[in-house]
């Protein structure tokens, strides 16, 4: 049947900020859905609070709203746009939950909006674990025994009956937030409380444990004619008990006979029909007892998911794109398969390679967090690798993770510890597996300890065997056969080099001498049965090459690899834009990346896609094949930058800013010299290799100082030291983890600028002209990582003279570094002196945000500059301030706020510092700064109260200014309670305030008040390190009960303005398309009302903003 004609305008809800368990896979699916629906002639209205996404580009949807994902704002948008239908299944759990909320509160009915893709009933059955289990039982499927509980006593009773271990899972949370496994009564009592807490409906499921069973997933699709297909089967390398998001997974399933596989397929078909998901994709998880084959159903997600993104990339079948078409009434057989062109989508992809997905964790950023892998997802990203065999795929995946270098086990490891490491899964278990096998632990024992299938372990053994034989020979003696065998088993040049201890470059040349080089094969959905028309390629060591590279001006774009904190979707956004722009300019675009969640790895983003690890070896192989005119390393964050010099050395033509200047900017010593030469102030600084050296330098500079390793992104392992002892310990530690001692990578020591306002600047340059793209004023002061502080564009409180200096320095720097493309500068303004903190001559995290605020696609422009075009031919809307060009801004404020994953890492102090820990960001827009800030906070999950009680406890330093904030709050109608000192200070300025006990002063104290829900917001600026203990408990309570908690006076005053501004303020929404039509004004001309916006910043100390919790 042709598509529906009764609907014309369709609304799509995005998944909001990147959080653990919900990353850019939903940008990929949402973007596909928008394009897919528009190509069928529908008008698309998109809502998402996350500005870093491709889907929120004004050209992706017809109407694009970057607004908080909350009911009132969504209703306002529905009222304004009057869509005919809402597609709830491409925005992750967030989109699905909001759709349910809108439907149940009658809003959809009120405005006559139909739910398409999945009915309310289907969603509820699939999402409510108990209803779902009933349905499964009804159709003769087994599920783990379970009960849903809403209060602790009954829970405990049931669990004791069931017997331990039991699995605990809160309802309606994603990534298993709040879920866990309890091995005994005590653990259970503690765990169930957390679970109930985490559930939006205060409900949790207690379940029979099938830990250690084999875990499988099926990605399935169905159309309204009841045609059903399985797109991909996925087998988890890790057993039940480790969240699929934290498991290494492999596609297709490896250890099922056809009978068992078809049983699972039959079950999936029966489930999707019984649940009533009429159209679209679903993800269904199964557990199988390896001893008996008993199969249980674990869960179903009636929407596209992280796994469906993986399945799409693994098979070449674009699930989200097709799901969107099915939702509007098309059937699978009516949709052609893009890759084969001749055949329809009503088929089941078959593949002739193996896909491995490996998660990426960052526990190191959350000291004190429990690194055990359980039923709650903790990874922040993932890589996917394609190989002709499992070994090849796994090895490519391992080296795609960063650091890709092989991991060294601590010198002294007892067998007992080894056993424990295998038994209790952690992020490094792959390495422990290899270690155990290398030590000759038997396969049976390894399987027994890990519950990993012997088939996988046998392959690891084979790899080690090949390595042994390689170690037995040498660079010179190695035969072609052995070299080929080693490469076919997945070994990287780097590993081989280690075995022979030679340089990997000599391994590469030797390998080429022996004629052992990779070929590229295609991902084609059909195992070569039909011709493929899309160059979606992976490397392997075989005979025939299918890359079919063409002779055309072409540019290779290097992506950014797995999502990490500090290097996430923003960089993928830039890479995609480079591809879009250069395609428009007639270049053949070639993308190299290994992150299955991204838009950049969608085969129709660029002309050619190489799904490959971003290591020198793999990238050079692609360049050898493609022979491009240019390579872009500026857009993928630190990952490709780290390759730049080596690539250049190997003859690659890097376009844009020369790697040498990138290097110069990264090398603090040389860069310091440059700043001095340019007469631009910088914090006093030094570099050191040894502890003594560091201590000397620090005392020379004067405390406090900031210490960190060089060449890192996201302020990795950066600390503020208030005493020399800290400095010394830091360097010693660094030496241990190998980041120090390497003369090329010294420890950096900077004077820490206290009380400084931080400013981020993005600029474009073409080698001659410089154009300032945006000057962003941070809300929190320097000392809190730029990625972790809120900021506003245009700035609201910077003096014209300061702005002038910022522009002047920026342009001077761009010229001195011969920047071609993008440059990001971070400044700290302390008592009107403008210091440069760092310069990154590359795309920065703020590019998408600035692009959306200004309406100018900066990454596209930059890509064009890199191919030799000039700013002046691109006629961009700028304003000139005595000779320096700056992009015009529109007459509204765009506030960016970060989102943090602390609710996933219990026991971690959420206090912020110079090390970035946010996973995502949101944007709030309004012509009033206060409103924009409040919207951003709301979007980030911090609902600023309209009434109620605010708790204040500020540092002595802040006491003199606290009354401004307090007065704002009181006029806004809120009550204030404060700790003794603060209360006294406020009373002195005539503010009515009630005082309350600190934690150690008696009961009921502030934490009691928080727990009993008496407090609606906290303002707590830290009193220095001493009293941290007391405050930690306050902040933790705030996180746990999700109460807004603000910890800098500047942020507090912004919040106060926000609250005042929101008073009696309707949810005002406007689309980007309209906003960008608004009149442009000079960035400098700030409404004078705002010049007193922020009081002079308060001390940063060990940074101290308590973050909004992940809104999930």
């Amino acid at each position, binding site marked *: 049947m042709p598509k529906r004609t009764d609907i014309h305008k369709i609304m799509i809800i995005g998944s909001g900020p990147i959080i653990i368990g919900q990353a850019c896979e939903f940008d990929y699916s949402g973007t596909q859905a928008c394009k897919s629906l528009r190509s069928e002639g529908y008008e698309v209205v998109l809502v998402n609070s996350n500005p870093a996404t491709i889907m929120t580009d004004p050209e992706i949807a017809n109407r694009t709203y970057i607004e908080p994902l909350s009911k009132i704002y969504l209703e306002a948008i529905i009222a304004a746009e009057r869509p005919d239908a809402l597609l709830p299944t491409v925005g992750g759990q967030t989109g699905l939950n909001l759709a349910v909320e809108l439907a149940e509160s009658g809003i959809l009915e009120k405005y006559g909006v139909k739910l398409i893709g999945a009915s309310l009933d289907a969603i509820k059955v699939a999402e409510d674990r108990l209803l779902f289990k009933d349905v499964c039982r009804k159709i003769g499927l087994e599920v783990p025994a379970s009960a849903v509980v809403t209060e602790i006593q009954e829970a405990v009773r049931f669990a004791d009956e069931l017997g331990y271990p039991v699995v605990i899972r809160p309802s309606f949370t994603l990534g298993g937030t709040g879920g866990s496994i309890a091995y005994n009564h005590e653990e259970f009592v503690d765990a169930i409380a957390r679970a109930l807490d985490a559930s939006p409906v205060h409900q949790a499921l207690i379940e029979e444990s099938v830990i250690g069973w084999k875990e499988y997933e099926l990605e399935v699709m169905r159309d309204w004619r009841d045609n059903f297909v399985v797109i991909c089967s996925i087998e988890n390398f890790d057993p039940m008990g480790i969240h699929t998001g934290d498991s290494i997974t492999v596609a297709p399933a490896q250890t099922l006979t056809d009978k068992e*596989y078809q049983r699972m397929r039959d079950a999936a078909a029966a489930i999707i029909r019984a649940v*009533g998901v009429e159209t679209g994709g679903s993800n269904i998880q199964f557990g199988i007892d390896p001893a008996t084959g008993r199969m249980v159903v674990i869960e179903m997600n009636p929407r596209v998911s992280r796994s469906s993104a993986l399945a799409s990339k693994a098979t070449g079948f674009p699930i989200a794109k097709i799901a969107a078409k099915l939702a509007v009434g098309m059937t699978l057989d009516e949709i052609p398969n893009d890759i084969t062109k001749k055949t329809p989508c009503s*088929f089941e992809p078959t593949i002739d390679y193996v896909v491995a997905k490996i998660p990426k964790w960052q526990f190191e950023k959350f000291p004190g967090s429990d690194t055990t892998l359980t039923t709650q997802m903790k990874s922040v990203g993932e890589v996917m690798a394609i190989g002709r065999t499992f070994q090849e795929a796994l090895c490519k995946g391992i080296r795609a993770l960063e650091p890709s270098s092989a991991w060294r086990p601590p010198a002294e490891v007892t067998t007992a510890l080894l056993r424990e490491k295998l038994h209790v899964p952690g992020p490094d278990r792959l390495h422990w597996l290899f270690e155990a096998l290398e030590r000759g632990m038997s396969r049976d024992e390894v399987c027994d300890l890990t519950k990993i299938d012997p088939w996988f372990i046998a392959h690891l053994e084979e790899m080690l065997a090949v390595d042994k034989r390689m170690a037995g020979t040498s660079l010179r003696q190695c035969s072609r056969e052995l070299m080929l065998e080693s490469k076919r088993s997945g070994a990287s040049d780097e590993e081989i080099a280690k075995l022979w201890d030679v340089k990997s470059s000599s391994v590469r040349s030797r390998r080429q001498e022996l004629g052992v080089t990779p070929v590229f094969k295609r991902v084609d959905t059909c195992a070569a049965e*039909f011709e493929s028309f899309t160059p979606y390629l992976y490397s392997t060591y075989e005979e025939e090459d299918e890359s079919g590279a063409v002779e055309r001006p072409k540019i290779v774009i290097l992506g950014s690899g797995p999502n990490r904190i500090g290097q996430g979707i923003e960089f993928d956004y830039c890479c995609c834009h480079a591809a879009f722009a250069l395609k428009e300019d007639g270049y053949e675009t070639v993308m190299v990346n290994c992150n299955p969640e991204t838009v950049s790895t969608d085969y129709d983003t660029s002309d050619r896609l190489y799904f490959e690890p971003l290591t020198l070896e793999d990238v050079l192989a692609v360049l050898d094949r493609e022979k491009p005119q240019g390579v872009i390393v500026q857009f993928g964050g630190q990952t490709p930058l780290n390759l730049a010099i080596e690539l250049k050395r190997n003859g690659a033509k890097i376009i844009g800013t020369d790697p040498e200047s990138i290097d110069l900017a990264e090398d603090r010593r040389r860069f310091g010299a440059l700043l001095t030469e340019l007469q631009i102030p910088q914090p006093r600084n030094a570099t050191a290799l040894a502890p003594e050296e560091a201590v000397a330098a620090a005392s020379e500079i004067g405390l406090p100082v900031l210490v960190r390793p060089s060449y890192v992104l996201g302020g990795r392992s950066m600390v503020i030291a208030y005493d020399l002892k800290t400095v010394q310990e830091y360097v010693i530690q660094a030496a241990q983890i190998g980041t120090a001692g390497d003369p090329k990578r010294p420890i950096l020591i900077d004077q820490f600028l206290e009380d400084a306002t931080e400013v981020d600047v993005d600029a474009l340059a073409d080698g001659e002209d410089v154009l300032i793209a945006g000057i962003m004023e941070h809300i929190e002061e320097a000392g809190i990582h730029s990625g972790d502080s809120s900021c506003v564009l245009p700035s609201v409180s910077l003096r014209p003279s300061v702005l002038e200096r910022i522009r002047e320095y920026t342009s001077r720097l761009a010229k001195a570094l011969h920047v071609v493309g993008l440059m990001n500068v971070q400044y700290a303004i302390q008592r009107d002196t403008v210091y440069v903190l760092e310069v990154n001559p590359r795309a920065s995290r703020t590019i998408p945000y600035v692009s959306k605020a200004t309406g100018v696609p900066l990454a596209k422009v930059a890509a064009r500059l890199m191919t030799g075009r000039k700013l002046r031919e691109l006629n961009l809307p700028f304003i000139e301030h005595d000779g320096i060009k700056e992009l015009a801004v529109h007459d509204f404020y765009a506030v960016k706020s970060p989102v943090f994953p602390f609710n996933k890492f219990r026991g971690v102090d959420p206090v912020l510092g110079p090390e970035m820990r946010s996973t995502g960001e949101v944007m709030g827009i309004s012509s009033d700064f206060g409103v924009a800030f409040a919207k951003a906070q709301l979007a980030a999950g911090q609902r600023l109260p309209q009434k109620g009680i605010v708790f204040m406890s500020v540092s002595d330093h802040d006491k003199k200014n606290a009354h401004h904030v307090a007065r704002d709050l009181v006029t806004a109608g809120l009550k204030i309670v404060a700790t003794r000192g603060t209360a006294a200070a406020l009373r002195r300025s005539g503010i009515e305030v009630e005082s309350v006990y600190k934690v150690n002063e008696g009961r009921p104290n502030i934490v009691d008040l928080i727990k009993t829900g008496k407090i609606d917001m906290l303002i707590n600026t830290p009193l220095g390190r001493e009293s941290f203990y007391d405050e930690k408990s306050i902040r933790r309570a705030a996180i746990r009960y999700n109460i807004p908690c603000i910890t800098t006076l500047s942020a507090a005053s912004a919040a106060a303005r926000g609250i005042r501004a929101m008073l009696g303020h309707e949810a005002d929404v406007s689309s980007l398309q309209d906003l960008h039509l608004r009149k442009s004004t000079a960035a400098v001309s700030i409404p004078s009302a705002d010049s007193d916006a922020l009081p002079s910043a308060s001390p940063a100390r060990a940074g101290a903003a308590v973050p909004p919790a992940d809104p999930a």
Partner: protein
Amino acid sequence: MVFNTSLTGYQEVFTDPSYCGQIVCLTYPHIGNVGTNLDDEESPKPYIEALVVREFSALSSNWRSSESAQHFLERNNVPVIWDIDTRALVRHLRDVGALRGVVSTDGTPAEKLIAEARALPTMTGQELASRVSSPKSYHWDRGSIDLAAPFAAAASAGAVPAGTSGVPHSAHRPGAASGKRYRVVAYDLGIKQNILRLLVDHGCDVTVVPAKTSAEDVLAMKPDGVFISNGPGDPEPATYAVENIRKMVGRAPIFGICLGHQLCGLALGGKTFKLKFGHHGANHPVKNLLTEKIEITSQNHGFCVDPESLPSSDVEITHLNLNDHTNEGMRHRSLPLFSVQYHPEASPGPHDARYLFDQFIDLMETHKRA
């Protein structure tokens, strides 16, 4: 030399008599992972002439496995080539079509082997069914292993109308349910055991007879229905079978699968032709023209019925392959006969077309009443 794109079910492929006379290349690179077991065979021994794979696992990891795949083929003297670029081979076969080939382990020089291969007959014109058929008739009473049974009904497309709840109508089997029995005579032209198992599941007493059993002898057994099986080779030279079918049409309900379908086509006056490289896999979309529903089907055939050649007055085309629009099924407009080119018993493969066995039962039921 042919290739099969199924991701699972290599044991079923090894033991499918339809592969008699063919070297098989499996496109999925890891073969042998789950070993072999006693339940998953389609006949007592492997029929493939030789196996070509990317990697052949020495280890079998599955709770049902009783013997490693390597050992199984070795025991049955089936040569295996692995560690070669099978994708390159498949792309070649795709372009030039199925080829004749020789597998040698004794170091005979390539030229000689090529000459030998050239000397081999092509598939066209070869009558192989009688070669693999059972020499004498026997009774079959084993049904499916229960592993697969419970959901079969719920899964077979159409069991559940779109949108409504998917509670399976407890494995809709008129025979089984009503305790009724149907006497079915099955011609063994290289029959796959899963067809027999499903007939039993559906309440049939099955007697398997040799390929060349005469129509008279079969009709003398007073069958409620006659089944014409799959099998190897070119249908045209199997004139004896065509003859027999002609004699039986209208006198007993007939259900044909694969070669059985082609023979029915010939019997009804149609023609068959050879496909370039055939259909061998478990993911082929087939449209049921009567219900408009799509079935993901299991296929294994090199020849095909030319729908144009069939007398449209008598024959109705019922199924269409959506990849290349070749014929996949037909039924007689007035007489009790229907057949499909693909494998509704799908072993290996999806169970979407199991409903055809119910259809056969219904056909026998109505014919009985009449």
